[in-house]
């Protein structure tokens, strides 16, 4: 198996960037800086999506296949909804975050141009009645503390509508650093995998006549919206969505509900809450994995959803595949994934694109 992003430099850089849904500029800027060396041409649309094209084979052929490969740049986050008299901030989530991972966390707040540290808090356990200690604090009783002593001080640096993301360390851990922990692995792993695949394809292009559109999309976490307009513009025949999928492979979870397991390769979706996937394309992915000896697993629980939900229905319809890195504790400041799985997903995407011929999948 070819290995990419071996020391995870790329994944680290992308994961730590600031990109709550609707404010993905910092992530897009970083990816855009890398694109000139990785594709034939690229554009950034007015919504903020980046689309990069690699053309292979006979450029004059009329039978060129259009393939969309996508990963979303945005991450779940928070938005300031009120600046209180005492300098504390009330907020809401951008995308789905469970309250059980909000209280106590560090956040970075700001907008396109500046950042400020804060943390999410409520009253101390000493002030909670015993009967309330095992109840999650509703978001209306949580606040963000940035250190401001009053409203005026807070308003100098933030306003209602300022957004934020978890401020959380990126590190490898476990046996020989087998796992990686960070915020926003969903879906910077997909973005990083795409960049690795592009780099491999540009070095040695596939021979079939393909127009490969690599799309870095916005606003997935609030309803799959960026990918929708990109797919409508490209009108691809095939689409591969690179994602993370929530898994629960803990000792106490009954096997049927574990979804997938870390360390067993990328997870292919058969069905989730937004899509029933194309069987033929799925079989092609499995066959390619088998032939190339790349580990892959089938996602075993109907849960979640991703950009495939809007892509497969776009235009006249698109045969769509979702390949995900199984990830524990998704949408928390501490997402955990296997480094091997991340590399297998990259390898499988590259192998599939190389195995596609001009005529059929």
């Amino acid at each position, binding site marked *: 198996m070819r290995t990419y992003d071996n020391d995870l430099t790329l994944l680290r850089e992308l994961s730590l960037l600031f990109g709550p849904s609707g404010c993905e500029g910092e992530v897009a800027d970083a990816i855009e800086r890398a694109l000139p060396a990785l594709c034939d041409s690229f554009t950034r649309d007015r919504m903020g999506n980046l689309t990069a094209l690699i053309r292979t084979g006979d450029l004059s052929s009329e039978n060129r296949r259009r393939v969309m490969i996508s990963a979303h740049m945005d991450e779940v986050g928070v938005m300031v909804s009120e600046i209180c008299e005492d300098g504390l901030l009330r907020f809401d989530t951008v995308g789905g975050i469970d309250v059980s991972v909000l209280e106590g966390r560090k956040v970075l707040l700001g907008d396109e141009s500046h950042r400020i540290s804060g*943390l999410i*808090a409520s009253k101390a356990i000493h002030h909670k009645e015993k009967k309330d200690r095992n109840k999650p604090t509703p978001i209306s009783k949580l606040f963000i503390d940035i250190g401001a002593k009053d409203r005026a001080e807070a308003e100098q640096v933030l306003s209602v509508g300022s957004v934020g993301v978890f401020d959380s360390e990126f590190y490898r851990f476990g046996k020989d650093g087998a796992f990686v922990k960070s915020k926003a692995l969903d879906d910077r792993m997909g973005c990083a995998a795409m960049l690795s695949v592009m780099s491999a394809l540009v070095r040695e292009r596939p021979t079939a006549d393909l127009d490969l559109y690599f799309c870095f999309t916005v606003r997935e976490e609030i309803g799959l919206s960026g990918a929708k307009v990109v797919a409508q513009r490209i009108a691809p025949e095939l689409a591969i969505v690179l994602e993370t999928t929530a898994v629960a492979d803990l000792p106490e979870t009954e096997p049927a509900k574990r979804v997938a397991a870390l360390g067993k390769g990328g997870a292919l979706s058969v069905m989730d809450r937004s899509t029933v996937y194309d069987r033929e394309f799925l079989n092609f992915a499995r066959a390619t994995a088998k032939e190339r000896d790349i580990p892959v697993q089938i996602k075993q629980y109907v849960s979640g959803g991703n950009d495939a939900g809007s892509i497969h229905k776009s235009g006249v319809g698109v045969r769509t595949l979702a390949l995900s890195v199984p990830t524990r504790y998704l949408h928390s400041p501490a997402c955990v994934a296997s480094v091997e799985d991340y590399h297998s997903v990259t390898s499988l995407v590259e192998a599939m694109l190389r195995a596609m011929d001009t005529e059929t999948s």
Partner: protein
Amino acid sequence: MDQMKNLAREIVALCSVPSVSGFEGRSTKEIQRLYEGRFDRIETDAVGNHFLWKTCGREGAPRILVDAHFDEIGMLVREILEGGFVRLVSVGGLSPSVLQAADVILYGKEVLRGVIVSTPPHLRSAEDDRLPDCEELLVDTGFSKDELEKILPLGSPVGFAPDYRELLGGRLAGKSFDNKACAAIAASAIAGVPREALAGDVVLMLSSFEETSRLGGASAGAFGLSPDYAMVIDVNLATVPDVPKSETVPLGEGISLSVSAATDRALTLASQKICKEKNIAHTMIAAPSSTGTNATAVQLVGGGIPTVDVGLPLRNMHTYNEVIDLADAEALASFVEAFVCDGEIAKNFCVREELPK
């Protein structure tokens, strides 16, 4: 401003030293590294207390105890499960609301990183909204069960990962300010006082076991020292929304002095006088029958020790993102310095008492 930053650095350095209750004794080397040369001697005792001595050099001088507990809340390894997951038991009062997805460090034969597990919204059912206690949660370590059993003995301490941030207006966020921030502030203040200015021999006791039993380290340590009088410093719950103001102290408005039947009234009033004379920002708080700190225990040690209870306001107590205000830290440092140099207190509270014959 620069001095402020130094104090912040000293606080972060001590608060980063792991010291889960019961394992304080493992940190002797770190304490020596931080304070060697700045105190006359550093001693330890049987129950995990550390004593930082600074003597005044005068024969028969009073002995002044400054107590700040050094232990921190944390967890212990209770069981190792399939897939390298670790079951925990809590040490001290952990809030279930901040545990999930927290970064932790496991101090076994090797130092390991880990993450406390959480359930993502994708896999959570609507009725499943109870926050599990520490004992019900697991730590994800990334090792297999067999590998982990070799390097992580049962009972190994587990602490939150140290990770600090500066907030606006000179506030600091991070773990274990309860109570190592107070310990670091007191150490910095006492180390900076010229020996000849001290009103007596000063012992800074970094005491053990406060979070698990409110008498453990401090009473044993105070018994061994039998000081003439004592100051106990601990953090105090700072004002937040949804909590009555009477139960908290304002953040950023200086230290608190407890008026309590459990401490020495005269010493408390003398301390208030210091604050007024030196212009040290402070709030008097009512703690009628207990201070909720080591002071309640220390004042009853041996033949009784006149004790004052001093507080540093802190938000988010017992989380890994406690918040303090450096202006309060400066006020505390000024107060400790003035207290250990106060000749009048030394004169009034250094009294040899005897039973009637």
